[in-house]
């Protein structure tokens, strides 16, 4: 036990004395959080909108007010005629033009229906889709809350669209769980594979193996510090996310940390497995990058929705541990659901963890024989 404690102390020396390791462990997670939070927003923020109001009545003014007070849109121009629409787009004045037909309020009251035209600049298709989505949802929202309540519009005509759990469509709510998964993969799998392969590269691994320390003690001594540090990392990311970006945490902390430990152990096992194959740090780095970090970013649903992927990628995504962890985290943090809805994800993660731990222990032993 004394030997083991000394071993762990040594590992912390390695971590605290290497500027690169420290940067990856502590600077990168915060940097990423802030980058994702402020720079890479995929939500609408004061997009330029131009209004062509042929009617200029109380309803159209109300709708316009709603749009402009949402924070998502900023009035760029009040247009007078159709011919100005093309100009507004070409000059880059507006990305979105909203056209109210003449006699809007009157038609709405007599026919129960009036037309709003939403024209977007689709040279950036993603942006156009978002503009359309935001505009529609604000208008529908207005329709439901204002018009239906006053009884002036027949109910049941328009389909009901509501954005559940993230009604403001804030992307920070989406990416924080993904970021936690990514950071854990980085700290646990990536760093573990590097630190273990460094011992191989410098020849100290042989000396450790020839010492009375058991192989299991060596592995555990190597990964334990990273487990501790990654827990600290999750907590700090959670704090920053809630304080800086108002990300909600609606579910149970116990379940959250339980699942996180499952995921951490899975990642650690992957790191150990990689270090057995990789003969030096460089190889370990490339292997973890390709086989762990890329799938965690692209195939977990972190950035791109899995449902939109081709069938083959959807199948592959089942094998990515981060996918199941991410589903669970979003469930816990945003929906506040408990184990009764997440038992399948928990079971899958648990299975993956057991499998990978067995595989990595087995491969580590093979190397010894």
């Amino acid at each position, binding site marked *: 036990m004394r030997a083991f404690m000394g071993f762990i102390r040594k590992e912390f020396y390695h971590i605290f004395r290497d500027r690169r390791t420290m940067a990856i462990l502590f600077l990168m997670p915060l940097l990423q959080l802030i980058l994702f939070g402020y720079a890479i927003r995929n939500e609408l923020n004061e997009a330029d909108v131009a209004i062509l109001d042929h009617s200029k009545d109380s309803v159209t003014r109300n709708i316009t007010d709603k749009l402009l007070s949402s924070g998502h849109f900023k009035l760029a121009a009040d247009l007078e005629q159709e011919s100005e629409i093309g100009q507004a787009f070409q000059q880059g004045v507006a990305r979105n033009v909203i056209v109210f037909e003449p006699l809007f309020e009157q038609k709405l009251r007599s026919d129960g229906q009036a037309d709003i035209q939403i024209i977007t600049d689709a040279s950036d298709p993603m942006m156009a889709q978002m503009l359309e989505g935001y505009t529609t949802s604000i208008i529908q929202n207005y329709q439901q809350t204002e018009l239906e309540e006053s009884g002036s519009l027949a109910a049941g005509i328009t389909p009901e669209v509501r954005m559940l759990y993230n009604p403001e469509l804030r992307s920070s709510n989406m990416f924080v769980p993904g970021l936690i998964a990514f950071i854990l993969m980085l700290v646990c799998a990536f760093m573990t594979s590097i630190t273990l392969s460094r011992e191989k590269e410098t*020849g100290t691994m042989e000396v450790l193996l*020839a010492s009375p320390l058991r192989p299991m003690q060596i592995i555990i001594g190597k990964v334990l510090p990273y487990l501790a540090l990654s827990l600290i990392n999750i907590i700090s990311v959670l704090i920053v996310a809630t304080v800086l970006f108002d990300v909600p945490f609606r579910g149970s902390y116990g379940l959250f940390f339980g699942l996180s430990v499952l995921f951490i152990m899975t990642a650690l096992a992957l790191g150990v497995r990689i270090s057995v194959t990789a003969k030096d740090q460089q190889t370990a780095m490339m292997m973890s990058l390709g086989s762990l970090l890329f799938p965690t970013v692209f195939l977990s649903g972190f950035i791109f929705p899995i449902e939109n992927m081709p069938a083959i990628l959807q199948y592959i995504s089942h094998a990515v541990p981060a996918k199941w962890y991410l589903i669970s985290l979003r469930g816990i943090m945003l929906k506040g659901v408990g184990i009764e809805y997440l038992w399948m994800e928990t079971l899958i993660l648990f299975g993956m963890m057991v499998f990978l731990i067995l595989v990595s222990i087995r491969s580590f032993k093979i190397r010894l024989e």
Partner: protein
Amino acid sequence: MHTDSPIIETEHLTRRFGDFTAVDNISFDVARGEIFGFLGANGAGKTTAIKMLIGLLLPTSGTASVAGYDVFTQPEQIKRNIGYMSQNFSLYNDLTVAENIQFYGGIYGLRDDEIARKTGELLELLQLTGVRDRLIRDLPVGWKQKLAFSTAIIHEPKIVFLDEPTGGVDPVTRRQFWDMIYEAAERGTTVFVTTHYMDEAEYCNRVSIMVNGKISALDTPAGLKTQLKASDMNEVFVKLARGGGGV
């Protein structure tokens, strides 16, 4: 001169990797307190043989015992009785001199007070007291080598295995290093050393020379020179390696 039973005994020790036989049916004994030179060209099977003796690799067939323990069934006991120094000097560059000593003392199972005492002794002996808090990466290679050897025997093992311990070191430092080896042997530690510097072979009590996985010669340096009518060990080695046969 060496009265006890041998401290290392191997009989028909063999290790195959697939079709390739890295170590082919070697049998030899090493006596207690002996400095045993284990020579051979790169790829001759030296490292594989050492790995079997220190419990890192299971033999395919044959028998071997180290410090009285069987390599098949008692690798843990073997590890408790040996020291091992790899060719990379196996110190941690980002740890200080004192931290390295403490770390190795710890993993070899010394108590804290023993570690403290040993650290002081070693630093004094190696005249490193002034740099005890300097990082290893800032030390000249000769100092690293001496320190690596000292940490490998910090727990006073019965045998110390040295795998190419003098690579990349100048002749004067090598000479000083061999003085340390002699001192350890005088204190009763058996030294099992691989090298490809033939002048160093002269310092050993006995020398075995491996060619293509087999031991093609085993005797005292003087004995080998007489048998092969060679003027120095270098010539012995060249004759054996060219012929590939036994003596």
